[in-house]
């Protein structure tokens, strides 16, 4: 409401700015030829006075003053000759006033309503910070709250930048939010303030890798090496040092390191699938016994190498993040990715490979009914006796979903 009152006041002022001079000056219709010539003559008379003043001050001498006067005299005569004839005209004040009163608000409001968002309140940051979690207006409440909490922690850290615990708490949150630069800084501060430990250094290195789009930079590698100096068994650092070797083209070294990591890892270690997948990318079978990679079918999740980015797949960082998560978190992450795939296919069902991958994923997650559902949706999208149909049937058979 206040907004509309302000609009009305502004519009009123604008209209008055036109109407007041329009109606006030209307009583006299000027004679432009007179006024123009008068103003010229006034200027020349001023100039003549100026010449006198200059002469008195001694800036010009008598001869120069005389010449200047003659020059001005010539200009005065010329100005007289230039008089124009333009008759006075009937006043247009009334029709113009009506047009202004109608058109100014009409045009302004029309243009504003197509461009503006009058119903949207301003959201100054300070005001949003004061709102307690859960009651924040608009937007997705939960997302807003996490963002708000992060912002509150940030505020705290801005005030007390030496609080190492605070940095350590917020760092993994930054990683999840994809704010890798902030995560790197937070981990670096944690290391600086709380001291160097293997997990902290490894996390710092990982954040740096994520920041460099999956590339193990010299900085990141230095962090991993510091971690390994503190704890030679630290799996995350071992994994990334091997990845660095692979990125340097030392495939054999990378392979040996990953094989060793697998051999020394427990069968249910969360990083196992990732390592197995890396080895698969090198075209190598894992040597170590007790391989337990069935819970994460590498083909089913279609992870990709760093060199061949494919749309919509999880990134190397996601995989790295998966490696360090607890089993529950990882299951949730996979479920989220599968749900994303399902949503996409519901919108656009023309991706056959997508359907097959979705079915496999559901089987892996122990939900054969959903897998069947996915395959039948795929058949609806690829009806008839085609090659695609044959592939769908084949997949159903291999997954043990054949209903016939």
């Amino acid at each position, binding site marked *: 409401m206040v907004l509309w009152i302000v609009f009305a006041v502004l519009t009123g002022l604008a209209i008055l*700015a036109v109407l007041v001079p329009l109606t006030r000056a209307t009583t006299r*219709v000027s004679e432009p030829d007179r006024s123009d010539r008068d103003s010229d003559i006034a200027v020349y008379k001023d100039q003549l006075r100026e010449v006198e003043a200059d002469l008195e001050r001694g800036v010009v*001498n008598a001869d120069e003053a005389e010449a200047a006067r003659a020059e001005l005299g010539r200009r005065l005569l010329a100005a007289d000759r230039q008089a124009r004839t333009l008759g006075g005209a009937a006043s247009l004040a009334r029709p113009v006033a009506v047009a202004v009163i109608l058109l100014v608000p009409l045009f302004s409001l029309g243009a504003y309503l197509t461009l*503006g*968002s009058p119903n949207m309140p301003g959201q100054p940051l300070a005001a949003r910070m004061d709102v307690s979690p859960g009651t924040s207006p*608009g937007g997705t409440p939960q997302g807003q709250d996490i*963002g708000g909490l992060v912002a509150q922690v940030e505020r705290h850290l801005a005030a007390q930048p030496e609080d190492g615990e605070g940095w350590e708490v917020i760092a993994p949150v930054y990683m999840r939010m994809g704010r890798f630069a902030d995560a790197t800084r937070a981990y670096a501060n944690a290391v600086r303030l709380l001291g160097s430990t293997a997990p902290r250094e490894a996390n710092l290195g990982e954040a740096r890798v994520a920041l460099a789009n999956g590339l193990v930079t010299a900085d990141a590698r230095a962090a991993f090496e510091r971690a390994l100096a503190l704890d030679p068994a630290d799996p995350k650092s071992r994994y990334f040092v091997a990845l660095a070797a692979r990125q340097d083209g030392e495939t054999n070294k990378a392979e040996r390191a990953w094989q060793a990591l697998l051999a020394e890892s427990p069968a249910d270690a969360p990083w196992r699938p990732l390592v197995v997948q890396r080895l698969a990318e090198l075209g190598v079978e894992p040597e170590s016994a007790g391989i337990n990679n069935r819970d994460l079918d590498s083909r089913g999740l279609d992870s990709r190498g760093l060199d061949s980015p494919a749309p919509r797949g999880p990134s190397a960082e996601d995989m790295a993040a998966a490696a360090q998560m607890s089993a529950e978190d990882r299951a949730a992450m996979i479920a989220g990715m599968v749900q994303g795939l399902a949503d996409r296919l519901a919108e656009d069902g023309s991706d056959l490979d997508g359907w097959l991958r979705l079915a496999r994923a559901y089987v892996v997650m122990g939900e054969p009914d959903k897998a069947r559902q996915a395959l039948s949706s795929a058949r609806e999208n690829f009806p008839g006796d085609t090659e695609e149909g044959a592939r769908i049937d084949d997949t159903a058979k291999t997954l043990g979903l054949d209903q016939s």
Partner: protein
Amino acid sequence: MIPEIGHYALVLALTMALVQSVLPLWGARRGDAGLMATGASTAYAQLLLVLVAFLALTTAYLQSDFSVLNVVQNSHSAKPLLYKITGVWGNHEGSMVLWVLILVFFGALVAIFGGNLPEGLRATVLSVQAWTTAVFLLFILATSNPFVRLSEAPIEGTDLNPILQDPGLAFHPPLLYAGYVGFSVAFSFAVAALIEGRVDAAWARWVRPWTLAAWCFLTLGIALGSYWAYYELGWGGWWFWDPVENASFLPWLSGTALLHSAIVMEKRNALKVWTVLLAILTFSLSLLGTFLVRSGVLTSVHAFATDPTRGVFILLILVFAVGGALALFAWRASSLQSGGLFAPISREGALVLNNLLLSAACGVVLIGTLYPLALEAVTGQKISVGAPFFDATFAPIMVPLLLAVPFGPMLAWKRGDLYAASQRLFAAAAIALVCMIALYAVVSGGPVLAPFGIGLGVWLILGAISEITFRSKLFSGPLSTGLRRAAGLPRAAWGTMLAHAGVGVTVIGIVAVTAYEREEIVSMKPGDTLDIGGYELTLDGFAPREGPNYSDTVGIFTVRRGGAEIGRLEPARRVYVATGMPTTETGIRTQGLSQLYVSLGDAGSEGAMAVRAYYKPLVTLIWLGPLVMVIGGVVSLTDRRLRVGAPRRAKASEKPIQPAPAE
């Protein structure tokens, strides 16, 4: 609510501009006082409305209101207060609002101070000014709206381009825009004169001070921009002939020409047509500059083609403004009466020479700036036109101009005496020559032409001073009378002297740095020492340092001269938190007029770091010169006298110069 008020105010300002572009002009044609009177009040209304819009946007920045897209894209809650404010115009949308704010401010000034203008002329000028305002407001609302809202406000913004987070940026664009936009007044006057078909006496009185004010702002803006590039970019250069720099230099060159031809017009009623044309060209070059910088055409012609809305819009503005004004000029110029006559050797003649050389220089810079763009657009070939081209073309035009500058004020109006002028300048020329020879004797090394360049600077300064000493007859009587007479000289004369001397100061700075600079690029470890220009720089070590929204790696240098410690330099590599973008912070130490300049490069192995160190003799003169020029301009602006060029009568030169009246 506040952003929406700003948005509505901007739309309403557009409406007012449309009203103003029609009613006063119509009134002037019909002779209707009521319609003409709406010109002034709508100008005030526009100033008020655009100010409301600008303040609303500033408030959104100060409050970090991330429901405004523009704020999200260019601000961050952790940014220091100063950069929250400068962030308002540190981006395309906000800077266009500032552009229009200055435009309507000048429009309101015309309305306030235009009381002594003929009513018809004032109304027409205000209408023409409103055309420009309306077109730019339309541009903002249609393609660059700063008040676009987000329904889900993010919790944090993406920060301002870190290279722009600098005090230099706080003042550079507003000054530059005040310069660009100030020329719009001269443009509006020129177009109004063409529409009216005559140049009033008041016209001439008006154009010079407006041009001078705009010129002062532009000079300051360019000098500040140059100094900003010098210390922020870390390359040690102060002018790169970069298209963005040229874009501001072009209107400066033609604006300087306009300033001088406006003097002729004001004093002698001559050169009317040429002044009108220059006024149109100067503002056209300002628009061209805006187009080059704002359309994205500079980054790549192809980038421009991929998102052409903005660029095409500004291009259309450019075509209509320039094409329309020039067509009007072609049509109406013949109806303007030409004024006083003058001999080739005269003050007017000297100013015409100045105009010709400045216009030629302007043309050269224009070609050097646009040719690569045209070539890329036509053939796809990318070339860069840099310093070698401009050294070979721009310098040869400027040297004769600078040689001629001291003669101009020495010549009389209408018909001058070159021989007498030369005699008066004899002392200045002799001292400049001695300086030149002394430099040849003392300095070994450096380019052969360098002492000549320094001598040229000395000639300009002394030539400017000679004019004052001659006019006040300082040495032809008791010193006290001479000084009193000098103080009594019109302030415009002092302004001329300061502005011309400022050019000399700049020339000396440029030549000294170009010819005698020392540069070292080495890899240094803590403990290493570097000798440069008679100073020893010792790298004590590196230290981290946290700022409000950045973290620095500072290199700490101790500066010694002859073993004695004279200070410290702390250049840094800075990384901004939000963008992760690294920038350099140079360490600069001013010794007298010279500077030591150190910037850090990339980190090498084993704790070493690349270090660029420069010793720049007399470098500060490059920016002190423009400052002196601007002071000259301001002094001249305070001279509110009416001017009449007092021509010397043909036989006057035979008479002895009259003694000054006893005071």
